């Protein structure tokens, strides 16, 4: 489905947290910030052209799950969060996209230029820190 066909869902508040799994290859040391953070490469659309996957944190929590549940089966991964506000301020839209195995699934759509990906990475916070990579 072309990304142009997606519509931003205003019912997702700007304060809403969007969670994304970060693979170990995407933990980078940022000496300027004095900590590890996700690479900008972690915030890109997949190669098949569909929009970037996230989960809506409030739906995850409302279902009785915790953040670490998002990493089951993904050993060594971390979990990062960005707000819908940060996404929208970088020309991204946010829409619900529930899946059979993940009702909290959502998408962040829009053209992801280098500066957009950097802004998303810089605006992210750890929800589950990278294992073995403390600042």
């Amino acid at each position, binding site marked *: 489905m072309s990304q142009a066909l997606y519509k931003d869902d205003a019912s997702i508040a700007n304060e809403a947290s969007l969670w994304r*799994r970060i*693979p170990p*290859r*995407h933990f*980078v*040391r*940022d*000496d*300027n*910030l004095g900590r590890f953070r996700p*690479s*900008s*490469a*972690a915030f*890109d659309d*997949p*190669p*098949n052209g569909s929009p*970037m*996957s996230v989960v809506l944190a409030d739906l995850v929590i409302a279902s009785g799950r915790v953040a670490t549940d998002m990493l089951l089966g*993904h050993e060594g*991964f971390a979990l990062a969060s960005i707000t819908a506000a940060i996404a929208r301020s970088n020309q991204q839209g946010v829409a619900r996209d529930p899946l059979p195995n993940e009702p909290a699934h959502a998408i962040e759509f829009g053209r992801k230029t*280098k*500066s957009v990906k*950097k802004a998303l990475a810089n605006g992210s916070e750890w929800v589950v820190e990278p294992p073995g990579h403390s600042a």
Partner: protein
Amino acid sequence: MSSVLEPLRKCEGLSDRDWAAGQTTMVVPSRATLVGRAQSRSRSVFPFLNGRLTVESEGPLPVWFRRAVAALDELAQLPTDWDSYGAGAIGHQSILATAELLLGIMRDDTPFPSVVPTNRGTVLLEWHTRGVDLEVEVRGRDRIHASFEDSRDGTQWEAEIGPDLTQLVQSIERLSERDSASS
């Protein structure tokens, strides 16, 4: 002009067989001189993936290059879906181009970058240190995208880089020469 160690000439054209270089004079091979030995062409071989990575260079390879080969070898061995979101394997052309680029732009005093895979199968080099943020995505030889920010003076640029690496080299020089104690 002629050398007793003249390498076997590769047959590249139809008229190559019409002539021969003069071989009447014995010239001291470059490896027999102190200066020449340091600059003679060297060949290094590293185990890599299911084969080997061979590097021919003028003079010995820098000390940091072994670390670069190890990092690139790890990326080359990543399976598809390594990021859990459908990422592709890392392309060999991107890996080879990254190795060549690093040899071309890095200095001995340049901080070693983070060597990061992208979900599109390319290699991303990242430097976030000394007040500088430099990211270089290597899609292939001559297909490079780079972005640079210097928090000290606000300089920033982003560009598709082709054959002219001047801007990238200057950014690496700025990064390398900056005092590591300051950020």
